[in-house]
């Protein structure tokens, strides 16, 4: 019995009863340790992969392994795409049906204008070819001459709001190289920024690192196409005194100085000017551009591979 001046707790602590020696790692503590260890190993593994991938994004053993693994996953992606295709086609069919009537009227107007322009351009083109022949005029690569189109499917799409890249099902095996321009039937969409043996990564025009020298077909004004707010495109570095109007068509400018060859040949359609603004505080015109190609729904694209001798 405890003396009156000692509490029960002190009495118990002070008792001479031998207790079993506690394990250094009881089962719960051990599982907590294992859990943290697993997390640490996985996080370190992810960081290691990220570091290696970030330091050598376009070459190295890890790059090759990623390319091979991506090729191995492709059949599964194709299978999933085939399952989803009927549903996607049905959605697009209904979507197209609802817009068809209004689009029809617009397209008829455009067709009328385009027919008249085509006649004039055909005559001008023949005349230009004759003049070039007479003058022995030398010029750089011009789209689509000197290029072979590698038509390929898009196998993956931007996976989040920070990614402006797609993967295509053709790579070095088809002659694709870094900076190969990529187009659709409508116009330019971007360039190849990473090449694997059977696949490649295309950075879209909306990628923050994409800059394309462009020219207004009507006025000859030059500028640089780059990403704007959100997913828009702008024609930057156009002096305020230059004339650019809504509806003007823009094409790639091509190489202007042989010492600094451009990544894109002259003449690839990019888009039309959708609005032009002037601000007192800005150094250049604010020119918004609507891309010809629908960058949000790309199923198949063509990579423009230079042919020999071009």
């Amino acid at each position, binding site marked *: 019995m405890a003396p009156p001046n000692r509490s029960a707790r002190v009495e118990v602590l002070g008792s001479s009863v031998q207790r079993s020696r506690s394990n250094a790692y009881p089962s719960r503590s051990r599982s907590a340790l294992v859990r943290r260890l697993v997390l640490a190993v996985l996080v370190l593994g992810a960081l290691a992969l990220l570091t290696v991938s970030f330091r050598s994004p376009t070459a190295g053993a890890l790059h090759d392994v990623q390319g091979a693994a*991506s090729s191995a996953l492709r059949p599964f992606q194709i299978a*999933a795409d085939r399952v989803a295709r009927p549903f996607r086609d049905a959605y697009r069919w209904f979507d197209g049906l609802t817009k068809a009537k209004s689009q029809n009227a617009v397209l008829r107007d455009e067709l009328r204008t385009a027919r008249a322009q085509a006649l004039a351009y055909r005559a001008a083109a023949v005349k230009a070819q004759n003049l070039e022949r007479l003058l022995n005029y030398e010029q750089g690569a011009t789209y689509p001459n000197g290029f072979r189109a590698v038509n390929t499917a898009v*196998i993956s799409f931007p996976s989040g709001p920070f990614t402006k890249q797609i993967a295509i099902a053709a790579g070095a095996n088809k002659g694709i190289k870094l900076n190969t321009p990529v187009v659709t039937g409508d116009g330019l969409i971007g360039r190849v920024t990473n090449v694997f043996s059977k696949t490649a990564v295309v950075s879209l025009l909306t990628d923050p690192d994409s800059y394309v020298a462009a020219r207004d077909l009507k006025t000859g004004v030059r500028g640089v196409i780059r990403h704007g707010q959100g997913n828009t495109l702008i024609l930057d570095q156009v002096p305020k005194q230059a004339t650019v109007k809504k509806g003007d068509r823009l094409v790639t400018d091509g190489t202007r100085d042989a010492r600094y060859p451009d990544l894109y040949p002259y003449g690839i359609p990019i888009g039309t000017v959708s609005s032009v603004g002037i601000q007192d505080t800005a150094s250049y015109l604010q020119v918004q551009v609507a891309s010809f190609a629908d960058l949000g729904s790309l199923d198949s694209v063509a990579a423009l591979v230079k042919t020999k001798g071009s």
Partner: protein
Amino acid sequence: MSAFDGVKAAALLFVAAIVQVSILTQVHVLGGGPDLLLVTLVAVALLRGSVFGAAGGFFGGILVDVATLGQLGLTALVLTVAGYWIGRYGETTGRERAHAPFLSVAVVTVLYGFGLLLVHFVLGERAPAGPLVRGLGPAMLLNLLLAAPVYGLARRLLRPVDRGDFATEVQLLG
């Protein structure tokens, strides 16, 4: 929890990752899109705990990074942490609560988005927060719509285990 559970969870995450990169990345509603892989990871982590969550996040993230030919390890890093966190929630306060999958999906959608933003920022890449913030509401809504069927399917495949198997640090005295 057995090795067979691991195989089933891996198969579930594999299918989710393939469907995500092949089909759902093209679905956009008001600037946001669903993330089947994230929702599946939430289900697996809630049902099987933090170790499964972390390992599943790593596995799913690597699949996405490989399939999209993106920066290897980037998605894996964020999903590993997300899977671990959801797993811990499932092991402790989230156990046996009907709202746990929905709450986890809602919170993780936001944290995953900002986690990716942070990693991109640390890597020195341009990652504007505007599109992310604008798309968060629709993305969360779409993920919540996926949560019930995905959690139901995962629950059928991975039957709830005896909670004693879960490691917790909460030790009751007395």
